Structure formats: structure tokens, C-alpha cells
């Protein structure tokens, strides 16, 4: 039984100017991508050009500019009060862990994709397949969150009901993908980031200024507003207990370090130093949004009360989940700002969601076309076959995501958090142990990944599926979960707090109990930490191969 998702307070009608802005924004991404693509085709062989710290940092920021950051975050801060801050902390501070433990080392390992790393580090096609499967799952869940955002904001811009809205948006996404294969290119992403952060910050500044909340630093000035917002906005542990707060933040942090499309960003830079500095810049660019988002939430809650007369937290007439998810747009609407301006903010949200979804679909396509098909099924696959399989995957994924987004189980931010906890439980341990403990072997990795997948999947079945499947719902009864104690300590949103340490322990234990990996593999790990500079042309495997053979690889 599907319940149409509606943000009641949102002005739902077709608005021409915002619709035009949305198309202009998407078109600008495409045009810029095309211009870069054509310009580069001619100069394909110019070696020595590198991607700089700031450019890569902006691409990292763009990666994070999804519906979750743009919309969902403010929604969670508004609706869930202090618990919403767990998402701010979780989605930013994880980059420090990435920086000190993984970024530079991953750069030295080289390779192409996350399943590539797992398969080569652990000498196991099965591990590769598991990592590819996990990548697909992550892309799927993450995209459902984006689709929800698209659908809700699309109501404002296009006035359609939520379901046709989602179908339209997904079609646009898949079509956008077909036209612009250059989405992930760093320059492109730097431009996208700029456009999106301008749209978002413009919203915050103008709403703050026009309503008299703030002048030049809404990120700090909104503190004065907090007394008027009601206890629920800031009182600690009102919505979720301390354990869930910590579990959520922890899962988001380790998830950041386990997401396949995050780590891949470090393969493209010239050296580890650039990898490190671009990570720092990336965090800065992310913070530009994350500093301002709670301010927007505060403005939104206050304006909601002023406009609807009811407190946002009232049991009747309070802010619904859907309304919270679009509070960024709602705030601009309530502030009686001109339609074109609200449209600008809305367009930013749409563009962010579409670009993120497109990026995730490409990640999924590579997992199937390269890691599953070419590496495991048909090593003789031609480029053309790979393109076909990639495109097929994207279309399939698009359909699946659309259908799921008709009735998503949670808020935007929560859905995306599920994907993070999956990454944190399955992939993060493999990356961390693979890079920092040379005795992590194939058996340990396999055991760890299988266990991680089981933990996450059972958590979802336990807590989320009863809402969808009647029989399970009946079995779950009051608590809404099949096994209440499991749901309490291993909720899908915070599964990593328990899941990740368990997977670590199991991986280590199994690795200790089984034969050590070959010396070659250990040397690859050592190479990732060695201070010896590597040529940009080299992967860790290359360097190890050179040193053991005592010379450069023979030309054939």
C-alpha cells in the first residue's frame, strides 16, 4: 500500500522560472563537460598535467553535494534536534580518519576501483565479487535517498504528484548519464561544486538577512534564535538515546572511509602529498555547506512556526518528515522570497541529487562491467561489450531505484546513512586492515566481508522490511522489528558501531589462524607506507615487481 509522499506546506504547482533554472543548471553541467571533453581529446598525450589540491578538493566536495547534504541534513537537524547533529559530525569528521589512515596509502596502491583493490590485495576473485556486490548495494540504497529528494523538490518545481515526479526525475538522470559520460571528471565536478554551493549559501544568506536573523555570518548568528525554537531543537537525547547518537555518528565516520567512490578520488592525483592536501581541502569545501546547514534548519523551524501558526514539533500540525526533508526550500518559500530565487535553491537541490545519482550509477556500472563481467566471467570482453553491460546496469538500477523510491522507508538522510553503515561494516575493515596489517589474508577478508554483509542485511530485514511485508510486519508486532534487541543495538542506521569491530575481530582471527599471504602481497602493503617516492606511473604492484625482478619489466 503506497502512501503518496507529500510535503503539505510546500507550494506544489508548476513554476516556469524554477523549471527553466533546473534545466539551465543541468544543461550547464553537460555543456561544460562537453567542452572539457572535446578540448582534451586533442591534447590527450600531454603528460605532466596534474590535478591540483584545490581542484581535487572541490571534486571531493562535489561528491558530497548530494540530496542528503543539501536537503536531508537540514531536515534531520530541524526534525530530530540534537540527534541531527550526529549526521553533521558523522559526515565531516570522517575525512580526518580517511586522511591519516587511508588516502595516501590508497594512492600508492594504485589500481582502479574498490573491488579491484580488494581482489588484488587479497588475491581473491571471490573477494572482488563480494566487494562489487557491496558496491552495487551501496549505490542502490544511496540512490533511493537521492530519488526521494528529487521527488519532493520536484513537486515544488514541476507540481507533479510524487510518483510521476520520481519517474520523471529518474528518466532525466538516466538520460543525463547517457549524454555525459564525463561526469566524474575532476574539472567538471569542481564546476558543479561551485554552482551548488553558491545556490545553497545564497539561500541561507538571503533567508537569514531578509528575516533579520543574520547579517554576514549566519553560521554563527543563528545561535541567538535558538531560544525561540522550542526545546526539541536543541535538547540532548530527546529524539534518540545516547547510544543511537554515537552509533550513527560512528557508522557515518567509518562509512566515509569505506565508500568506493570516495577513495577512488585519490587515484587520480600526482602524488601522496596532493592526495593528503586535497583531502584537507575537500573537508574545507564540505564544511562550507555543513557550517551553514543547521542555520538553515533553524530559520526553517522558526519560519514554519510563524507561517503555519503551529510549532514544528507539535503532535498535530507539526512538521512532517517530508516537509523536513525540503526545509531548505520551504524556508525560502516561507520567507516570501521571489519565486525565481526559491527556484534557484530548489534547482540546486535537484541538480545535486541528479549529479550524485549519475555518479553512483557509473560506480555501479563499473562494478558490473569491469569487476564482475570482465574480471570474473569473460576476460576477453571487448570495450563495446563493456559499454553495453554498463549501460544495461544503469538502466536496471534506475528502474529498481525508481520503484523503491515510490515508498521509501525513511528520510533522505537516513536512507543515505544506511548506505554508509554498509560501507563501514563491509568495505572499511577491508581497506583499513588491507593497508595496515600485512598479514590480512584471503580467508580473513572473505570471512569478514561475508559476516559484514550478513550483519547489515539482517539489520535491514529486522528493522526495515516489516514495514513492507505483511507477514513480517505481523511477526514484528509492536516494536516494528522482528528481534527488538537486535534492532536496538544494531539498527541499520548505526550498524557499524557493533558491526565494524566484530568484522575486524573476525578478520584478524581468521587471518591469524590461516596461512600468511605471500611475500609479494606483503611487499605491496609495505610499498604503500614506504616514503620512497613512486613515479606517477606506478602502482604498488609495479614497484614490488621491479624490485624482485631487479629491473624494469621486459618490453614485449
Amino acid at each position, binding site marked *: 500500500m503506497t502512501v503518496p509522499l507529500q510535503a503539505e506546506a510546500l507550494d506544489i504547482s508548476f513554476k516556469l522560472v524554477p523549471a527553466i533554472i533546473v534545466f539551465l543548471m543541468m544543461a550547464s553541467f553537460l555543456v561544460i563537460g562537453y567542452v572539457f571533453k572535446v578540448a582534451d581529446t586533442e591534447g590527450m598525450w600531454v603528460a605532466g598535467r596534474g590535478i591540483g589540491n584545490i581542484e581535487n578538493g572541490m571534486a571531493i566536495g562535489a561528491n558530497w553535494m548530494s540530496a542528503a547534504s543539501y536537503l536531508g541534513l537540514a531536515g534531520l537537524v530541524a526534525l530530530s534536534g540534537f540527534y541531527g547533529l550526529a549526521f553533521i*559530525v558523522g559526515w565531516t569528521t570522517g575525512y580526518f580518519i580517511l586522511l591519516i589512515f587511508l588516502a595516501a596509502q590508497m594512492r600508492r596502491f594504485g589500481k582502479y576501483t574498490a573491488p579491484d583493490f580488494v581482489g588484488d590485495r587479497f588475491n581473491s576473485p571471490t573477494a572482488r565479487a563480494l566487494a562489487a556486490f557491496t558496491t552495487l548495494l551501496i549505490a542502490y540504497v544511496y540512490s533511493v535517498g537521492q530519488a526521494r529528494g528529487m521527488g519532493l523538490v520536484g513537486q515544488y518545481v514541476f507540481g507533479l504528484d510524487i510518483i510521476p515526479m520520481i519517474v520523471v526525475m529518474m528518466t532525466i538522470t538516466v538520460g543525463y548519464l547517457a549524454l555525459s559520460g564525463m561526469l566524474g571528471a575532476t574539472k567538471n565536478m569542481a564546476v558543479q561544486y561551485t554552482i551548488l554551493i553558491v545556490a545553497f549559501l545564497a539561500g541561507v544568506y538571503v533567508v537569514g538577512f531578509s528575516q533579520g536573523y543574520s547579517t554576514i555570518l549566519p553560521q554563527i548568528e543563528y545561535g541567538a534564535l535558538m531560544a525561540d525554537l522550542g526545546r526539541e531543537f536543541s535538547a*540532548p537525547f530527546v529524539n534518540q538515546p545516547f547510544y543511537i547518537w554515537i552509533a550513527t555518528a560512528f557508522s557515518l565516520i567509518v562509512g566515509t572511509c569505506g565508500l568506493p567512490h570516495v577513495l577512488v578520488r585519490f587515484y587520480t592525483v600526482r602524488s601522496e602529498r596532493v592526495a593528503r592536501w586535497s*583531502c584537507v581541502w575537500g573537508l574545507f569545501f564540505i*564544511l562550507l555547506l555543513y557550517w551553514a546547514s543547521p542555520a538553515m534548519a533553524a530559520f526553517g523551524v522558526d519560519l514554519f512556526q510563524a507561517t503555519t501558526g503551529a510549532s514544528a514539533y507539535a503532535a498535530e500540525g507539526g512538521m512532517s518528515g517530508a516537509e523536513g526533508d525540503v526545509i531548505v526550500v520551504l524556508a525560502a518559500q516561507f520567507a516570501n522570497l521571489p519565486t525565481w530565487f526559491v527556484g534557484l535553491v530548489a534547482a540546486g537541490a535537484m541538480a545535486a541529487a541528479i549529479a550524485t545519482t549519475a555518479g553512483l550509477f557509473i560506480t555501479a556500472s563499473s562494478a558490473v562491467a569491469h569487476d564482475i563481467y570482465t574480471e570474473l566471467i569473460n576476460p576477453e570482453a571487448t570495450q563495446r561489450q563493456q559499454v553495453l553491460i554498463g549501460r544495461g546496469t544503469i538502466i536496471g538500477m534506475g528502474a529498481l531505484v525508481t520503484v523503491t523510491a515510490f515508498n521509501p522507508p525513511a528520510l533522505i538522510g537516513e536512507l543515505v546513512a544506511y548506505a554508509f553503515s554498509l560501507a563501514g561494516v563491509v568495505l572499511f575493515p577491508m581497506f583499513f586492515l588491507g593497508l595496515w*596489517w600485512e598479514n590480512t589474508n584471503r580467508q580473513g577478508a572473505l570471512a569478514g566481508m561475508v559476516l559484514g554483509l550478513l550483519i547489515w542485511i539482517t539489520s535491514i530485514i529486522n528493522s526495515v522490511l516489516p514495514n513492507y511485508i505483511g507477514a513480517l510486519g505481523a511477526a514484528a508486532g509492536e516494536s516494528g522489528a522482528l528481534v527488538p534487541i537486535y534492532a536496538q543495538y544494531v539498527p541499520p542506521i548505526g550498524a557499524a558501531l557493533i558491526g565494524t569491530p566484530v568484522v575486524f575481530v573476525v578478520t584478524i582471527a581468521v587471518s591469524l589462524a590461516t596461512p600468511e599471504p605471500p611475500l609479494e602481497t606483503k611487499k605491496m*602493503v609495505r610499498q604503500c607506507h614506504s616514503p*620512497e617516492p613512486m613515479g606517477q606511473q606506478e602502482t604498488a604492484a609495479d614497484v614490488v615487481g621491479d624490485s624482485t625482478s631487479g629491473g624494469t619489466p621486459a618490453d614485449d
Partner: protein
Amino acid sequence: MSRDTPADREESTIQPDGGTEPAHEEINYLDREVNLLRPSTPFMRDHLKIIWSSFVLWALVVFGPVTLTALAPEMMTVQMPVLGFPLHYFLVSLGAPTGALILAIVYTRYRDGLDQKYGIDPDSVESTAPETGEATAADGGVEQ
């Protein structure tokens, strides 16, 4: 330090404190185990020192305020004088992420400093196999 013969270089360089450590250039990093808890080379020792210390600071900055709030809510939810935030809200929403950024900058600069100390330039392309006995310039590339 005497570095007269290749045979001498194979041996360790005598350190002022009486310990013996091979100089950085002579270490074949591919032969030394990487261990998070027991670094096997001077470089890794230095590196892990900053990793662990900044990690501890990070944990305090990120999880400290919220834990304090759970333990002593009355004290933590007082309103701040000028800014109007409840203290816990300020520390968590602004303090934690900004603290992480500051720590990130500090770590990365420190790491660059480490590179300088060991005479490493990641942006230079060097020959792949480290050759023992071939000392690069001894300016700052020698273990103190």
C-alpha cells in the same frame, strides 16, 4: 660517523645514544614489516607517533562533548553568553567539524615536515628499486 667502505654502510650507523639504526637511505622499505603497533623503521615510528596522537585528539574533539552532555546534561546545556547557543550544541555542531579540519591541517603540515626531515620529495620521480650503499645527500636525510 664513518662511512668509508660499502661494508661499513651495510652495517648500521652508530647513533649518539648508543643504539644502532640504519640510515634512512639504506633501508629497503620493502623488506621491513609494516605494523600499526610496532613500527619497524624510524620513519614509520615518527609517522605513527603523529597518527596516533592526532587520532586521540580527534576522538576527544568528536566524541568528547556529546559524551559529556550525556554525563552532565545540566552543565552542558547552559546558554553561551554572546552567541546564544546552548554550549553542547555549539561544541558539537561547530566545534567537532571545525576541530577535525584544524587537526587535518596540522597533521598534513606535520607530515610535510616529516618528508622534509627525511629528504623526501613525493613530487620527484625516482628510480624504483632503492639501492643500498647509494646515499642521497645527507642534508636532513639522516636519522637524528
